[in-house]
């Protein structure tokens, strides 16, 4: 019976629209009664969802270990994937359509056995894909068989060669036979795979595919179409197959693990290479275009470019489209190519539409070349791993989702509450707003209050977030990193870092800090830099920042302090009173942060800058005054020198407004400080008493202006104090109760019994 059946092998390139088109045409001509496709054989159940009306590519088959969802593989499909087209063809005709590759259960087990236990988001491609693994430049050509052929043909990389030869080809006659022949030749010439793991897995995969083909022939199908990556094609040719027994033995020896397969929505962004997805394709949007419009590719593409630019308020006229088409075609001709490729189109767009500017080109790349299409899966699709992880966490932390709103009070010193808090913070970061934080009453930092409410749409949000990772921790980390790359400015980054610290995501924290450092290096606004500092200083001093984080944070803090100190004198120049008022607040924040950090090198730089500020001519008085005051506080300036500076600033030649500002800055706008800060009182007092009568009359308006702003009770107290100080007779330290003659022993002893009673002695 095996003699009756015809097996035709179609070697394709994953996600190649040209391959897909050729394949559908070839299938229509061949009219198979059975289609076998490279894909995990244990995905039969999800396959039934494929014809569901709500299924919309790009989607991915996700295989994972239910107990450890971090171990997962993805098989993405786009509408232009040959496999997708073959599936649709087979299912719509009701003929047998099945996957034939090694089951996910074996693939994951193999990966584990190799020690690559975390076949996580970063590497699924290598498990999922057989062919264009150009992103991992392995020495073995099996990793990128096309590159070898392309190099032989004089092309720089395999992708482009394949593109010109296959993807852009309009007629497909003899294509698959040619591919098969080329690959057979290549496989014959190549040495066996160097990497045992890769080689072993490949042997297993091909053995499984052969076994499935044999089974199909036994079942009595006449015309079997086999769709696989071009590399595998020669191994599946019926005449050259090794005996069935050896394949069976090989398959028996493979390890297995319990695995589940389901569909998840995918995006073109994730399909593209630059999202870190190894075997991705650089330009899904462009392929989609090639697939959707077989005719007038160039004209349609450039028209779409023009329309996109117009939508973004950039000029793009029809005349320019014509010119761009001509340029693209001339470029293709100059390079001896039959049709302009993406490269030529980009160059034409840049020269004609963008006036050489690359910014608009990036927009084109993002919106058109990659595209922002998001797939959909039917609602009855089995759960994704992230959902499972959320459920597991809910169980572990004894938090059941309820539709009504409830208040949750957490004491972070308890382990379970800390876990709950982390879960809430992580979900919030992922934009899954199950709980929203409420203002905690009381001042303890160990208390948190959340208001919890479970809404049905949260399930959708979780599936959306599932693209970021398979556990809450992982997804939150990946998403935070993504956010960090996206947020525009320093304050937003600072806000983000706070959330990341709260959610305890060390990896993400590292990334965000890196971004913060880069952003800080570019920021020219010192105010923004200063605003970024306090949260970091706080985290460093009080937060539960881990050891590694602390080092990172401290290096960022070092950078910030250095930059602020370099830029501050200029930033303080030519400020009006309002701006200076704002700056005053920032100086205080900065001073507080530096004091908090207690690092001598910061303090010395900071003192130097304050000194410079104090010395700068033409500085707004408020700031100069405050600088002197801060210097006085840190004892970098003696009281004598402070008094000297004060009299300089308030001398007759000074602009009265500046002088008033200086005094205000110096006194800090509050009489209370003056009352209770002994050295400050001393300085002011020394200065006032040092004035000659005539001079005093002249500065009186200034003093009145500043002191008049103090509250009346404060002024009264000051007056009392000055009077009292006079009685004591020590003008330099009027407030001090100096031990000596004025000390009334009898009166002091009178209070002792009461104190004893209070202290319980």
């Amino acid at each position, binding site marked *: 019976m095996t003699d009756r059946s015809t097996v035709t092998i179609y070697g394709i390139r994953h996600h190649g629209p040209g391959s897909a088109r050729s394949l559908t045409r070839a299938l229509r001509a061949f009219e198979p009664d059975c289609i076998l496709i490279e894909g995990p054989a244990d995905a039969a159940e999800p396959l039934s969802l494929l014809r569901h009306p709500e299924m919309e590519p790009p989607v991915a088959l996700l295989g994972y270990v239910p107990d450890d969802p971090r171990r997962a593989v993805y098989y993405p499909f786009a509408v232009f994937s040959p496999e997708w087209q073959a599936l649709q063809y087979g299912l719509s005709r009701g003929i047998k359509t099945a996957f034939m590759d090694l089951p996910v259960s074996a693939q994951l087990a193999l990966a584990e056995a190799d020690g690559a236990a975390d076949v996580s988001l970063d590497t699924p491609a290598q498990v999922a894909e057989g062919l264009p693994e150009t992103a991992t430049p392995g020495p073995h050509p099996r990793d990128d068989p096309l590159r070898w052929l392309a190099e032989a043909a004089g092309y720089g990389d395999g992708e482009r060669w394949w593109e010109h030869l296959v993807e852009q080809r309009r007629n497909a006659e003899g294509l698959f036979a040619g591919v098969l022949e080329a690959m057979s030749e290549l496989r014959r010439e190549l040495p066996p795979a160097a990497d045992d793991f890769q080689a072993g897995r490949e042997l297993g995969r091909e053995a499984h595919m052969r076994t499935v083909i044999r089974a199909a022939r036994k079942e009595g199908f006449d015309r079997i179409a086999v769709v696989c990556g071009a590399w595998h094609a020669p191994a599946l040719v019926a005449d050259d197959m090794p005996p069935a027994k050896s394949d069976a033995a090989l398959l028996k020896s493979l390890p297995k693990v319990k695995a589940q397969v389901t569909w998840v929505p995918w995006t073109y962004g994730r399909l593209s290479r630059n999202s870190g997805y190894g075997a991705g394709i650089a330009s899904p949007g462009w392929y989609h275009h090639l697939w959707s419009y077989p005719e007038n590719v160039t004209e349609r593409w450039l028209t779409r470019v023009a329309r996109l630019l117009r939508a973004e308020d950039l000029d793009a*006229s029809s005349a*320019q489209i014509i010119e761009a088409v*001509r*340029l693209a075609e*001339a470029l293709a001709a*100059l390079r001896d190519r039959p049709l302009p490729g993406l490269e030529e189109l980009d160059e034409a767009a840049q020269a004609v539409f963008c*006036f*050489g*500017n690359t910014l608009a080109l990036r927009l084109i790349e993002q919106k058109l070349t990659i595209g922002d299409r998001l797939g959909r899966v039917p609602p009855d699709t089995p759960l994704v791993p992230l959902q499972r992880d959320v459920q597991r966490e809910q169980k572990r932390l004894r938090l059941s989702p309820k539709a009504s709103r409830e208040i949750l009070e957490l004491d972070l010193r308890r382990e379970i509450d800390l876990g709950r808090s982390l879960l809430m913070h992580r979900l919030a970061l992922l934009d899954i707003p199950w709980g929203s934080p409420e203002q905690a009453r009381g001042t303890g930092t160990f208390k948190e209050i959340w208001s919890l409410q479970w809404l049905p749409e949260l399930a959708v949000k979780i599936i959306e977030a599932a693209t970021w990772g398979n556990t809450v921790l992982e997804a939150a980390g990946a998403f935070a990193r993504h956010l960090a790359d996206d947020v525009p400015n320093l304050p937003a980054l600072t806000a983000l870092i706070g959330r990341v610290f709260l959610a305890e995501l060390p990896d993400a924290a590292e990334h965000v800090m890196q971004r913060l450092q880069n952003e800080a*290096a570019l920021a020219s606004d010192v105010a923004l830099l200063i605003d970024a500092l306090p949260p970091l200083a706080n985290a460093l001093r009080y937060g539960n920042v881990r050891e590694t984080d602390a080092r990172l944070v401290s290096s960022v803090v070092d950078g910030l302090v250095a930059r602020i100190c370099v830029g501050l004198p200029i930033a303080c120049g030519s400020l009006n009173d309002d701006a200076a008022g704002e700056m005053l607040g920032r100086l205080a924040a900065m001073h507080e942060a530096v004091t908090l950090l207690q690092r001598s090198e910061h303090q010395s730089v900071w003192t130097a800058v304050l000194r410079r500020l104090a010395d700068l001519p033409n500085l707004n008085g408020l700031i100069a005054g405050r600088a002197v005051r801060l210097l006085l506080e840190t004892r970098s300036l003696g009281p004598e020198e402070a008094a000297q500076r004060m009299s300089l600033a308030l001398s007759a030649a000074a602009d009265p407004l500046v002088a008033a500002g200086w005094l205000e800055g110096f006194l800090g706008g509050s009489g209370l400080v003056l009352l209770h800060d002994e050295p400050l009182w001393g300085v002011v007092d020394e200065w006032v008493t040092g004035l000659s009568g005539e001079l005093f009359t002249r500065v009186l308006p200034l003093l009145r202006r500043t002191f008049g702003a103090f509250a009346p009770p404060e002024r009264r107290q000051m007056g009392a104090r000055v009077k009292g100080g006079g009685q004591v007779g020590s003008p330099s330290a009027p407030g001090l109760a100096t031990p000596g003659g004025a000390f009334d022993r009898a009166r002091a002893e009178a209070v002792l019994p009461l104190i004893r009673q209070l202290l319980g002695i």
Partner: protein
Amino acid sequence: MPETLRATSEQQFAGELEALARADDRPRPPNWKLSPWAVSTYLLGGALGSSTEITPKYIGNRRIIEIAVATLATDRALLLLGVPGTAKTWVSEHLAAAISGDSTLLVQGTAGTAEEAVRYGWNYARLLAEGPSSRALVPSPIMRAMQAGKIARVEELTRIPSDVQDAMITNLSEKALQIPELNEQIQAIKGFNVIATANDRDRGVNELSSALKRRFNTVVLPLPESADEEVRIVQRRCEALGRALELPAEPPALDEIRRVVVIFRELRDGKSTDGKTKLKSPSSTLSTAEAISVINSGQALAAHFGDAKMCAGDLAAGLTGAVIKDPVQDRIVWQEYLEAVVKERPGWKDLYRACREIL
């Protein structure tokens, strides 16, 4: 033949152009001396058959030259854009030489460029004597290029006042030049085209009107891609310049060139070569041409005031001058750079001290 200081490209590379024309069997656009393929080869260099070697005129991305040539082949005008010192004029001259065999039809754009320079002027003696006639007309380089089917070059297009710029619109879109005084029209012969260069640092001087901009395909000439490439360009030019100025100093040490190139690149790119430190960029362009001039002045200092061997001290003044163009902002940038990068880098202490000294 008297010794000219500098020969035009078509004179200097006459041999190469001739060899290319002989070997060139590809279709040529009307009135082109070479096919587009041969023009690319002329600019990018390459072996021609077994005997002739074409020297590269432009070291850099092949695609840029291909876009430029393809643009000219589709009879669109070409605008070469780039910061000063990225070989815009150099490329335009060689393109004109290769395509038309004539790089001399040149309009130098200045704030004072008048309409006569892009259209036509009058020989007033003849105009008064004979009245308006075509004999009294003084054609501009662009008009002559139209009549002869050649490439005309416009240098510094954005420095030309806007009204004069717009006078070129009909030349470019209708490929014709109206002479209302004679009720005549000059129609361009096939092969006519315009290559303009503009500096995108001072785009604001006389920004192109969008009508004119639309007539051009824009090609941006970037700064050299890799440090090695840039070092090669700088070294080659410095040696040539040193010879021309007859400097007695030793040829510049490769290490010093590398240092200057690295500093320029790092400041330009806004990050250190190892990718670890982000930096602010100064307002100055820091082009390859400026690197050449820093090395050159360092060489001159070493030759005339030093021991003929260029050291960090000879470079410091030139470097500081090249980087600090804005006395406030650039100074911060340079200071930050010195502290964050130069000071820490092993073996750069001498340069750090020399630069700090004059700052």
